[in-house]
């Protein structure tokens, strides 16, 4: 691995689900190498049918300090949740 190697985040779409899930990260020199290492490191036991790799530096993430302004204002809006419905027979979650 050379000095310009970067961190990549790895997402796998499993047979069971329909969406890609974050499974971990790895170092690689370029996206193509990252994709192959993702295959070797994260799909060795048949976990996936599709892989995404994203350079970690390309992800814009919210910060701890954003919590107050981002999420607290939603606490007093229970009508946005479906929690008040009675679940029909045979349905475990909605």
């Amino acid at each position, binding site marked *: *691995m*050379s000095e310009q190697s970067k961190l990549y985040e790895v997402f796998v779409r499993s047979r069971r689900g329909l969406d890609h899930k974050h499974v971990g990260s*790895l*170092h*690689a*020199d370029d996206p*193509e*190498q990252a994709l*192959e*290492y993702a*295959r*070797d*490191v994260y799909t*060795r036991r048949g976990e996936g049918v599709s892989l995404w790799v994203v350079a970690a530096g390309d992800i814009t993430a919210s910060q701890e300090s954003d919590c107050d302004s981002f999420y607290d204002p939603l606490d007093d809006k229970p009508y946005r949740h479906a929690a008040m419905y009675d679940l029909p027979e045979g349905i475990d979650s909605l």
Partner: protein
Amino acid sequence: MTANDSLLTYCLRLGDDALILGHRLSEWTSRAPFLEEDIALTNVALDFIGRARLFYQYAAELQGGDATEDTFAYTRDVRDFTNLLICELPRGDFAFTIARQFLFDSYALLFMEQLKASKDPRLAAIGAKAEKESTYHVRRGREWMLRLGGGTEESHAKLQRAVDDLWGYTDEIFEVDTVTAGLIADGVAVDPTLLREEWHAAVSRVMAEADLSQPSPGWSVEGGRRGIHTDDLGFLLAELQFMQRAYPGLQW
């Protein structure tokens, strides 16, 4: 030699190629340049060990009696192994390992594509499975060739030296003897002479992309198919077979 004996010999050759090369790759486990590559190399090693098992299992059925896949892997001596010499050469530096894999995998891919069409259904099934693995091995190998060839002065020099050192071992890959000739005539074995041109073109293309000069060693060795090996194979087998030699029949 009966047709059954020829087929047994053929399976052992292909199994030996896979086992010995797989073992050489496994020597990188925990010693590769970095974690991701360590796992990747070990994966490839396991592909080859798995391939060896398929050929040996078939060979055991052909031999009959008490023979199992382990009989072939653990209880034969150096002269009984019939792998290509290129498979047994010590792992060398990382460039050597990459160059060897690229040269061998490029051949293996073409070979397995043809083995898939063998009239022997067992060999055809192994060919179909191995072809998929080899497709990935060649993809990986090509990228490493380009990365090392176009990397630093040092990586380029090491890769060029590796290719030069290996080139004289590649003639043996395409040899045909009486055992294979009979099986080729029966539509069971792959005729490697027909693969050579395509192999050479594919390998030369990547070497040119990697800015490597075409080796012209002026030497060539063979002997693996007749059990004539380098000194190194004995040391490899000593490690590979130690447990079964020291404790025959040991199970876990």
